[in-house]
């Protein structure tokens, strides 16, 4: 394990921001801390960076204890949501600042800056100032600045949230490529599940200061273990076992017992004309059609490919795929 976080706790007054969180980041791994605002993800990132002290716990990097090491000696790179380029420095000076602090010879800095500018596909802007750049360009420069001094760990604090949708999608792919190519272990904070799904090797879903579930994006989507994760990672139908056993007993095979709900994703719900329930509304979204269904199992959402032949009021039956369901803690 490259970075190891063990039993980290942090409170602000009476508010518990982190409740004994443990987590590891492997060499070259891209980890996303995902959760709603106030879940503790940013606090955890700031503790890793050294910008915040923890109340208790341990932080090690390749076996070395970081707990007492100040932020500036940790050798990490960081990118914030607000681009936070130094307004008084040119793009080149911004990118080369970390190297300058380490006493790197000027010629070497210049060469490194040029390489990085080529890497972020902005070779012509070395002499410009931050206020002359667009938001997307500024964030690319911030990324170059963060990786300039070969950081042991790259920290990204909602780096795409301030950008508009198109630039965000572009930059998302570039961050992904860059991270894969350079193999820098990375921790990113985001509240956008789509961002987490496309970027992360591993998603750490957090809620109220605790890790709800950690795993690959496919894992978290297909096999959520808690109701929170099922809700947060996309749309889900959560069905109570008492209703299931009467109507769809075949789905009860894997019921582990206890206070659990069955999570069925809308795209895994086959719909055909029938009498079990009826269509409440249909929404055409281009590649799919979303149906709202009123059934004895509760209100369900189904997504069918293309344009579906249903209209509000039509009677329907549903045929869920038992292999696709996941039991989550209520």
């Amino acid at each position, binding site marked *: 394990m490259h970075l190891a976080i063990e039993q980290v706790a942090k409170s602000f007054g009476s508010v518990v921001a982190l409740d004994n969180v443990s987590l590891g980041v492997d060499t070259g791994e891209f980890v996303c801390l995902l959760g709603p605002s106030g879940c503790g993800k940013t606090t955890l990132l700031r503790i890793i*960076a*050294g*910008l915040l002290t923890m109340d208790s716990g341990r932080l090690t990097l390749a076996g070395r204890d970081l707990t007492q090491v100040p*932020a*500036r*000696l*940790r*050798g*990490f*790179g*960081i990118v*914030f*949501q*607000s*681009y*936070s380029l*130094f*307004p*008084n*420095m040119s793009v080149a000076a911004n990118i080369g*600042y*970390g190297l300058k*602090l*380490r006493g790197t010879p000027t010629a070497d800095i210049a060469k490194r800056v040029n390489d990085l500018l080529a890497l972020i596909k902005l070779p012509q802007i070395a002499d410009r*100032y*931050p*206020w002359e750049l667009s*938001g997307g360009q500024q964030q690319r420069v*911030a990324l170059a*600045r963060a990786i300039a*001094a070969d950081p042991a760990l790259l*920290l990204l604090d909602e780096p795409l*949230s*301030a950008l508009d949708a198109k630039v965000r999608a572009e930059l998302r792919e570039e961050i992904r490529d860059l991270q894969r190519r350079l193999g820098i272990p990375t921790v990113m904070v985001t509240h956008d599940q789509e961002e987490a799904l496309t970027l992360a090797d591993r998603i750490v879903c957090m809620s109220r200061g605790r890790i709800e579930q950690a795993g690959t994006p496919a894992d978290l989507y297909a096999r959520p273990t808690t109701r929170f994760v099922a809700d947060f990672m996309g749309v889900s139908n959560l069905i109570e076992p008492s209703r299931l056993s009467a109507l769809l007993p075949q789905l009860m095979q894997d019921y582990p017992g206890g206070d659990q709900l069955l999570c069925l994703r809308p795209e895994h719900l086959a719909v055909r004309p029938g009498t079990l329930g009826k269509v409440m509304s249909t929404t055409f979204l281009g590649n799919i059609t979303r149906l709202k269904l009123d059934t004895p199992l509760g209100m369900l959402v189904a997504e069918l490919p293309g344009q579906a032949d249903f209209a509000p009021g039509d009677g329907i039956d549903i045929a869920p795929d038992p292999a696709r369901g996941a039991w989550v803690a209520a």
Partner: protein
Amino acid sequence: MTAVSAVAPRVTPLARERADRIFDLACLWIPAAALLLFFVYPIGMMGYRSLLLPDGSLGFGNFSQIIGSRSFLRALVNSLTMGLATTAVTVALGLLLAFALHRCRLWLRIVLLGAISLPVIAPSLVQGLGLIFLLGRNGLINKTFGLQVEIYGFWGLLIANSLYALPQAAMIIGAALRNADARLFEAAEVMGATGWRRFIDLTLPNIRFGLLSATFVVFTVTITDFGNAAVIGGDYTVLAIEIYNQVIGQMNLNLGAVVGMLLLLPTVLAFYFERLATQRQFGTQSEAAVPYRPGHDPWRDGIIGTLAWLVALAPVTVVGVVVYASFMRLWPYRLDFTLRHYDIKLAGGYDPLWISIGISAAAAGFGTIFLLFLGVALKRLGGPAARAIYFVSMLPAAVPGLVLGLAYVFAFNQPGTPLILLYGSAALLAMCNFYHYHTQGFATMTTGLRQIPPALEEAATCIGASAWAVLRDVYIPYTLPTLISVFFFLFMSSMVTLSAVIFLVTPNLMLAAVTVMRLDEGGYTAQAAAFSTAIMLVVTAALLLARGTLWLAQRRIRLSAEA
């Protein structure tokens, strides 16, 4: 016989619209006309007089004559030297204090802020007076230790001017420091920058306009200050004293006008840089910027905090010693408590204090109403005329009080014009004080008015409120805290100012700050201290009253927002 039962509207829509239009225009043009008469016209007259030669023709003869004169050159060199020295000291200390206030975690931060703001509530010559009590020939230090320290002259004036300008420097630099994005500093920290590197590489470059602005403001305040130069300058003659001697001493008005015009130069530059500083602080700020909060750093807080408290001790000591000495029987020989210095019979006793209070209240009352009308009119009306008036409204800050007072002499001491009626009147003094501090009041007012939600005004208008009703029911209730702030700012500034009114007072119409100077000139230093203390008491009372009413007004707004 038919009864007309339809209810006729009291005011037809067309008449209503016309009434509103007239109201708006009156709101704009009455204060604008006053601005022209009491600010633009005097400055123009001074410019004209500076070019008017003894034979009645126009030219630069006065300028060449003044620049060639020995006494002027000496005063110029002295003023520039003093300006540069004071600026160097004050900006450095101002940066220290601002840094302590905004970038450190200090104990009793609010007390430190109060201590360094102390000179704001005192007439400008109090610093000089306090220094004389401490370090003068009959000062505490010389008598106690049997020394012969000479405080009159360069060093005394340097200390007094620095104390006087320090609050302004600390405030301007503080405003620049406050607008920092915390993320910048965190990014630098993670990249490996120490606290010192962050200060050199980030803090200093990003407050450069603030520093530049503070430099010009301090320089301007120093070379145009009159009170301290008169009290403690001794033989070290500066331009402000030279103007006073030319105009009051030798009735050499045209040459006075020339020095006045020359004094406008640095202040116009200072004004320009201050505008630049407020616009360009920290370049472009992104929406997601997070305000900087100083973290825990015992070394930084310990060292900077200690130095800041040591600096803050100076104004407290100097102002404190004036208050203390005013109660002592014979400073510094017989230090027993007495109230006899407060029994002032000379120079009309306490009449000047009451006159000052009256004139300051008039300046503040009139000023607040004019500024409200002007602000509302500029908000409602657009167009080139409104923009021009906005620009002129911001200009008075670029004119030092001394120059404004002098300009009033040229504009209103004109026999044969109706304006002579104003000369020597209390009304003119009130107007002079108001326009002296016009810019700061105007800026506060426009900021306050900008916070009114536009929808509120539109809603009121759609319901059918007239322009006057909108002013009464929307603007005034919403801007009440702003109105209170502007009123007390004008009142307190008028109470302590000396430089503008020194040219306009008459023996029958004496002001408090001028009385302090006269008492000191006459050798009645203990009475001067007592009178200063009385002024400070009035200003402090006004300050407390301002805080109290502000608290009440804000509470009312809070309560109505919650209801």
